[in-house]
């Protein structure tokens, strides 16, 4: 074992976890390692951390690899790594490759085999297959994702860099400077705030998906005042107040307990939902509203009630549909996606969190 090989193994494992580690970063890392005291575990950790990962969302993945390699801690290092292990001031990183057994890697080879389970980026995980650990990783990213989405949505509305010149006020202003227009006044365009109505399927068939959709909507709600959320299975009910607090992963249970979503049999009924929504909540729609629908469009062979969706469409600005199923299965079996998607501005297939995030970002 030698220094650089071990380190390269570590970099490789990081890359396999989905962390983008570039060559220049590895070079920085080696250079930085030559500058610090390896016996201080905090110091050693933060050196690797600050040179190799540049985004907080990778921290969990980084930590898992780091502890797999270096969990032995400083005590073991102290025992086996006195000064001679690291010939102190090495001029260049390549020279470090010559130092035998320098890197405090403990039992690395034996751990190699156990790697395969944890090679995935949590965001790429298919939602319906996500394990508890993945869920926790994803949950940690929610605030980050939602903040990004919120800022994206705000930025969308700020495209007035090349706005027209307001001649009148420019001329008026130029009076002060003897007719020389020193300050050019431009027309300020008024910005529209996004008004969003989200309708989310919370039935058992799309359980994981709706869990995440709800968590996402809940965190979006923190950044946007004009967001109303409705949940449905058979009946539709407003769930905005239940989303304002609580653990994102238990939101769905809270919603099921508090809102009235089932009337008779408890099968998802999109048709009834749309008619019910039009009847009870059509006042929430106006020409500025964007409607987001989260669900798999599996209607259990109930009536489609297309005219209700049509009415929603005419009452609002745009409808977007987010479907957890891959596009290939749309319209198969009792999925009515192909019928419904005709009324949507766009529909997205979001089998994992990354695609869901991307889809929302595209709006």
């Amino acid at each position, binding site marked *: 074992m030698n220094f650089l090989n071990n380190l390269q193994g570590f970099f490789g494992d990081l890359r396999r976890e989905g962390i983008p580690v570039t060559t220049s970063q590895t070079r920085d890392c080696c250079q*930085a390692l030559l500058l610090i*005291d390896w016996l201080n575990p905090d110091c050693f950790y933060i050196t690797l951390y600050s*040179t190799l990962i*540049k985004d*907080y969302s990778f921290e969990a993945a980084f930590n898992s690899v780091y502890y797999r390699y270096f969990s032995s801690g400083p005590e073991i290092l102290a025992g086996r790594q006195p000064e001679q292990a690291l010939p102190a001031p090495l001029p260049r990183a390549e020279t470090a490759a010559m130092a035998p057994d320098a890197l405090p890697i403990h039992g690395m080879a034996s751990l190699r085999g156990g790697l395969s389970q944890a090679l995935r980026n949590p965001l790429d995980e298919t939602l319906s297959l996500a394990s508890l650990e993945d869920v926790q990783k994803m949950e940690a990213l929610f605030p980050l994702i939602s*903040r*990004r989405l*919120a800022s994206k949505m705000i930025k969308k509305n*700020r495209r007035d860099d090349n706005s027209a010149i307001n001649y009148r006020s420019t001329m008026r202003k130029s009076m002060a400077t003897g007719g020389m227009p020193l300050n050019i006044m431009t027309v300020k365009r008024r910005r529209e705030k996004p008004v969003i109505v989200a309708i989310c399927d919370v039935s058992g068939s799309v359980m994981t998906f709706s869990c995440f959709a709800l968590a996402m909507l809940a965190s979006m709600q*923190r950044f946007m005042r004009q967001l109303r959320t409705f949940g449905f299975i058979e009946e539709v009910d407003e769930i905005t107040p239940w989303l304002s607090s609580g653990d994102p992963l238990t939101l769905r249970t809270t919603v099921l307990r508090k809102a009235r979503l089932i009337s008779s049999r408890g099968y998802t009924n999109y048709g009834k939902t749309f008619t019910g929504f039009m009847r009870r909540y059509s006042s929430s729609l106006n020409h500025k509203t964007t409607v987001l629908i989260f669900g798999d469009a599996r209607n259990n062979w109930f009536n489609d009630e297309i005219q209700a969706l049509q009415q929603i469409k005419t009452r609002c600005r745009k409808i977007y549909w987010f479907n957890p199923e891959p596009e290939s299965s749309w319209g198969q079996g009792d999925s009515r996606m192909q019928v419904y998607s005709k009324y949507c501005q766009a529909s997205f297939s979001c089998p994992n969190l990354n695609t869901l995030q991307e889809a929302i970002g595209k709006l």
Partner: protein
Amino acid sequence: MQDKINGLREGMFKAGYICDDRTATVLYLGEALHKPILVEGPAGVGKTGVAQAFSVMKNLPLVRLQCYDGIDEAKALYEWNYKRQLLHIQAVGSHNVDPRDVEQDIFSEQYLLRRPLLQAISSSQPTVLLIDEIDKVDFEFEAMLLELLSEFQMSIPELGTVKAIHMPYVFLTSNATRELSEALKRRCLYLHLNFPTLDLEEQILRLKVPGLTDQLAEKIATVAHRIRQVDLKKAPSIAETIDWAMAIIELGLDDLDHAVALQTLNVLVKHREDLEKLEGMIYARNDLNFQPRPVNNRAW
């Protein structure tokens, strides 16, 4: 090298900033490798403070560029003072002057407005350059910044190239509202600051709030810590904890109980919903534990 890191930590302490081993190490590496440091973390954990304290410690001027949506080169690099240029042209208009002289005149240093980035580069002594809230700028600006941070020079067509005499120490802060470009991140060392541990917050309070007894500092830090565990719209930042401690001192109080907390909580928490929630918790339990309200059990 450990001495250097410890020295750095002491220096930062004297400058009014308590940093842990990790922060000190990153600062040391940034200095040794001549790399910009990208600081991320929630609002109010002292991202900007790191740069400010660093400049105090090094006794170097701090040049600060506050980024915002729509910032452009004219606001960040340089701009010609065209009002003065126009006035100059008008003034010499009545005299008989060679137009080429006028042109040379109006494009001289005298008419150049130096914006923060040019200031940092052209300064005769090294500076600490703080680029605050880098995530607010658009991609074009970020690309421009990238070029600047790798070369430390910029060209002004009328004047020629300005090259940095001293490399500035660069700090970038970000709230992660959008992802920065890979290229920019690659060039920086990454430092993620989080809310401090209980001990650290206590130390910070003692350092920042004169006249605070140890006992009260401990109590305030503990309560602030507990409040951060509650699910709030916005968790109180360190800056707000410091304000809170100052408010309590200012009111002439020397203990923190639930009556004092109810009176001063609005210094710590700024959302009405959050405030109501915390007040509810205090009323329900009559203490400052901030546990969720106990469920009423029917058996009793």
